[in-house]
């Protein structure tokens, strides 16, 4: 399979009144056509910025460095108008909160057909037919009636399906799903993830699934990038990562998922402390203050991204299971 997206040494900085905020640091990721990548990390780790920066959807206060190659073309140096040509038809995005991602005053039909008429130049009749077909594809019952509804008449799960239908309407090759299930009920979460995976396989679409929940990515991705404080700290094929975790941070993330086996009333393990201040440049591993295995070396020197073999990369001096 050919390389669809290659992010090389990408960094994102925000200008803030307190100084430069480092949101993403020197991230390199490669994605093949039809492949699915999970980006995992806690709030503020830079995973949303990573996906928006890749698309070029950052606000004016942000600066992005590094190169992004999409289908063999360097899109990081393209002018904005040409990048926009790729949005929708090449890359599309699903947003976290389906409550705010739909325009409250416009009917579902007009929002769904917007990109079909504007981007693909379809006439109204064709666009309507295509919209009905899209609604069927995202398993919405009675699609004709749905076209006439307003967003406030729908549940969160329904709205997220509409968002997915809009995102895939121009048949993108790469779909960014930015925490698509965070705002939804647990029961609906599974359905939406199933739907995304099915759509992806039908159209051989690549997906970058951004989430804070390791459980979400487990069954729906080919590889995983774990992010912490703007760094990719562990990057491996999904099976490899779960079987052979190297980073103490990934382990801590997994431990903080509640389990059925633990006795009732026991405390949920949490990761103590919080993310380092992203405007400050401090030496050492950014996770050092929260890591259970911390040593003096961790506090003094930031570990590089190390190749552990089997496409497994990690950023730790003392990985779990030892260095090979």
């Amino acid at each position, binding site marked *: 399979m050919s390389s669809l997206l290659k992010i090389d040494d990408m960094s994102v900085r925000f200008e803030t009144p307190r100084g430069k905020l480092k949101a993403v640091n020197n991230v390199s990721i490669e994605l093949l056509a039809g492949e699915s990548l999970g980006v995992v990390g806690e709030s503020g780790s830079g995973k949303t910025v990573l996906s928006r920066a890749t698309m070029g*959807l950052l606000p004016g206060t942000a600066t992005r460095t590094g190169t992004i190659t999409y289908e063999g073309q360097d899109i990081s140096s393209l002018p904005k108008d040409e990048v926009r040509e790729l949005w929708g038809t090449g890359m599309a*995005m699903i947003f976290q909160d389906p409550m705010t*991602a*739909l*325009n409250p005053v*416009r009917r579902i039909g007009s929002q769904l057909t917007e990109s079909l008429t504007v981007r693909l130049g379809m006439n109204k009749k064709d666009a309507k037919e295509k919209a009905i077909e899209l609604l069927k594809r995202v398993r919405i019952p009675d699609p004709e009636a749905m076209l006439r509804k307003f967003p406030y*008449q729908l549940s969160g799960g329904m709205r997220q399906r509409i968002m997915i239908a809009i995102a895939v309407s121009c048949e993108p090759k790469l779909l960014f799903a930015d925490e698509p299930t965070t705002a939804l009920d647990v029961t609906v979460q599974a359905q939406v993830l199933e739907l995304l995976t099915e759509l992806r396989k039908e159209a051989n679409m690549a997906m970058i699934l951004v989430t804070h929940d390791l459980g979400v990515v487990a069954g729906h991705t080919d590889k995983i990038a774990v992010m912490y404080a703007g760094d990719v700290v562990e990057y491996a094929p999904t099976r490899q990562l779960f079987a052979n975790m190297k980073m103490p941070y990934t382990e801590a993330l997994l431990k903080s998922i509640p389990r059925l086996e633990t006795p009732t009333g026991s405390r949920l393990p949490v990761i103590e402390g919080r993310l380092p201040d992203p405007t400050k440049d401090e030496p050492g591993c950014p996770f050092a203050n929260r890591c259970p295995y911390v040593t003096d070396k961790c506090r003094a020197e930031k570990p590089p991204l190390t190749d552990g073999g089997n496409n497994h990369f990690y950023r730790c001096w003392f990985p779990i299971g030892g260095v090979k």
Partner: protein
Amino acid sequence: MSETSQLSTTDSVDTPVKIKRKRKRPIGFYIAGSWIALIIFLAFFGWALPTPSWDESFYDSLGVHPFHPSHILGTTLDGYDMFAGLVNGARLSVFVSLVSVTVGGAIGTFIGVTSAYFRGKIDIFVTMAFNVMLSIPNLVLSLALLSVLAYSDENHPATMTRRVGVLMLSLTIVIIPILGRIARGATLQWSSREFVLASKSMGTKNFTIIRKHILPNVAPAILAIGFLAIGSVIIVEGSLAILGIGVPGGASWGSMLANGRGNIAYSPWEVYLPATAIAFTVISCNWFGDYVRLSLDKRESKI
């Protein structure tokens, strides 16, 4: 009334959309709506009513009381028919206020929405310009414009068209920053919403986003303030007429008020009637504007 509410309850079972349209409106909405409809009707079709001519003095009936058989709302001390004057004044007041609020609102909305959507240096400049314009009292601004652009004395009388034109121009300039700021504020709020980003991420062009996503959301706020603005424009027009630089010759409500001011002791209806017309129209516009704003709030709360 009870029949309609029964109907809407049965409807609600099948089509919940319809209840929204049939919800009860406050009584003030109907009163204000009817008054506005009446004034607009008079403005457009008042010339067709069988009234005496408004600019002709009836020398045989000077200062007759209202409810006189031949002059339903009486005449002025100079013998001008009050009803005809009010009907004719409606035309000018409605024309002046509608045109200046529509034109000023359109320009203000365009400037406000685009500057807030694109931000940057233009936005800073526009905000500054709006603030400067708002810091000049609008009556003073209109006064200055009128006395410069439509200067008039015995030797050089300014034409009626010129006076009305300059009056509308000055009112338009007054309206631009008022509605522009509302548009800017609303756009700032709506353009940071995720659906704008979502539409952007589908490759929609900026002006398409403004047209399809920003304007429909900003419109209710503009409309609400626009109705209030119509009310204040009518008041400014009246004030200018009283100051003697508005429309001359009793052609507008304000002008009638200005002409009748001296006769208040002999024929008070000369003042009361146009004042009532102005007050009712302004109150109706405010109520109507409030209703538009309220219906906007209801829609917001449902999201």
